[in-house]
């Protein structure tokens, strides 16, 4: 069964007579129990999409359904079934941790006890601070409280808008482990993120940029679409190496990737020899050239330029 169906959704914002297309003709579906990642930078349209699916915003064109219910006609049913964690912290700052959670439970006609099993792992980490006002929590604790509140009514679909933005590498790992536990409970999860490396933790991803979907597939499927051989090169002087590689007219792209540069040639063939020549001519030392598999970020950048 499909938890989320999006068909030809478009949304424009008009500010001072200037129209910006936030989403243009987006279509995809999410299966029940799937972790579906919406991967894209700021301004890609991720939040607009989430607001439409959580019935907080009406699209200009197209249709969408959550759990079989139409986002416009049946918005009340969706609100009972969907859990939503907005990108911006939206809990009551002047209520305590426990009061916030009780409030959300009451609104959804349930109690903390009833669904405690679902939030236990997450909530236990902030329970020692249950009398503290939400506004006085640190970023990581706010995030855990917001997730607990989004889960307290045992939603069937969970919408998480950039839950890991600005979060350090360790907390991000922990957060994703939490999402995989929720998946095992049968909850469908739509999660957006600007961090490309998180794509590999999703079952399927949609790469999105400027309101358009660049690609929808499993993470492996996305990287398989990368057609040309990809090379990783490093040497003693990385910045000069990049400049030298970029001046070669045969080079299609050269991007820094941590300790390596990733290179694609316009007309592949003899790639390694050509790179060796550049290194020799520039008198670089400690050079290393490897033929590598592309990652999601390589693919995203290649798709952005198409």
């Amino acid at each position, binding site marked *: 069964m499909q938890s989320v169906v999006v068909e030809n959704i478009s949304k424009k914002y008009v500010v001072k007579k*200037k129209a910006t297309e936030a989403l243009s003709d987006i279509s995809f579906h999410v299966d029940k129990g799937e972790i579906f990642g919406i991967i*894209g*930078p*700021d*301004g*890609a349209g991720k939040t607009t999409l989430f607001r439409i699916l959580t019935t907080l915003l009406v699209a200009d064109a197209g249709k969408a359904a959550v759990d079989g219910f139409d986002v416009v006609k049946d918005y009340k049913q969706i609100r009972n079934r969907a859990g939503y964690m907005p990108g911006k912290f939206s809990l009551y700052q002047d209520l305590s941790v426990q009061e916030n959670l009780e409030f959300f439970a009451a609104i959804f006609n349930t109690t903390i006890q009833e669904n405690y099993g679902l939030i236990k792992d997450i909530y236990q*980490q902030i329970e020692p601070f249950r009398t503290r006002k939400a506004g006085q929590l*640190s*970023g*990581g*604790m706010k995030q855990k409280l917001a997730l607990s509140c989004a889960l307290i009514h045992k939603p069937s679909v969970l919408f998480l808008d*950039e839950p890991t*933005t*600005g*979060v*350090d*590498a*360790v*907390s*991000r*790992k922990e957060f994703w482990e939490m999402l995989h536990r929720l998946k095992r409970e049968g909850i469908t999860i739509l999660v957006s993120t*600007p*961090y*490309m490396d998180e794509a590999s933790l999703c079952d399927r991803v949609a790469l999105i*940029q400027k309101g358009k979907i660049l690609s929808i597939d499993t993470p492996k499927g996305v990287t398989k679409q990368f057609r040309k051989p990809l090379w990783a090169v490093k040497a003693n002087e990385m*910045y000069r190496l990049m400049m030298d590689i970029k001046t070669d007219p045969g080079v299609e792209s050269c*991007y*820094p*990737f*941590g*300790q390596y540069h990733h290179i694609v040639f316009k007309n592949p063939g003899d790639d390694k020899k050509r790179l060796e020549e550049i290194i020799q001519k520039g008198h670089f030392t400690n050079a290393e050239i490897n033929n590598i598999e592309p990652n999601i*970020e390589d693919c*995203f*950048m290649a798709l*952005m*330029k198409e």
Partner: protein
Amino acid sequence: MQTEKVITAKNLSKKFGHFVAVDHISFEVNKGEIFGFLGANGAGKTTAMRMLCGLSMPSSGEATVAGFDVYKQTEQIKKNIGYMSQRFSLYEDLTIGENIRFYAGIYGLTDKQIREKSDSLLKELNMQEHKKTLVRELPLGWKQKLAFSIAIVHDPAIVFLDEPTGGVDPITRREFWNLIYEASSNGITVFVTTHYMDEAEYCHRVSIMVDGRIDALGAPASLKKDHAAKTMDEVFLQLARKAVRSE
């Protein structure tokens, strides 16, 4: 010849009541260096950075920034540093030209200097035709490049960048690092925090804070060697997992 130090910190500490946010950190940053300042959320990075920017008085220890003392010469520090973060950058309802003029004016540049700077900066960014465009209407990538250029409009000795590339698309993120390299090759010291571990690799040296202390400091290559790790991500995870205090 001795390398010029732009930052020196010795046992720098900050306490809030009983809570030791920054716990005796010592390090030096050289002129023109790109220094990555890493740490988990709540490790004390922001507090340390606020002290170095002259915005927060240390509890103990010593530090100088651009040759000025963090206790007694905070106003001189503010004049000699640039600062850019994701949250605070430009005025959205001013044009590109107005933003440049405003910040240059705040930093005390003369009218003539402002005109010259404005021209060279717009040319460098390829934004000559957009001088009268409102910042609000610019794509995010442009805004960030502009914000960076404006943060160094007064040719500071050092620029502090607090997560400058969060949420930016991968191509713009890389273009932004080109600007950082350029500033560094022009002798401006760059002090940068980031959650992208690939960006840690671009720094000349990196420090990693854990529970208020600096637990690792060195070039990315030597940190990886010391921790028998293949990537900076692994180094970071090894160290940050040792953290006792939660945020």
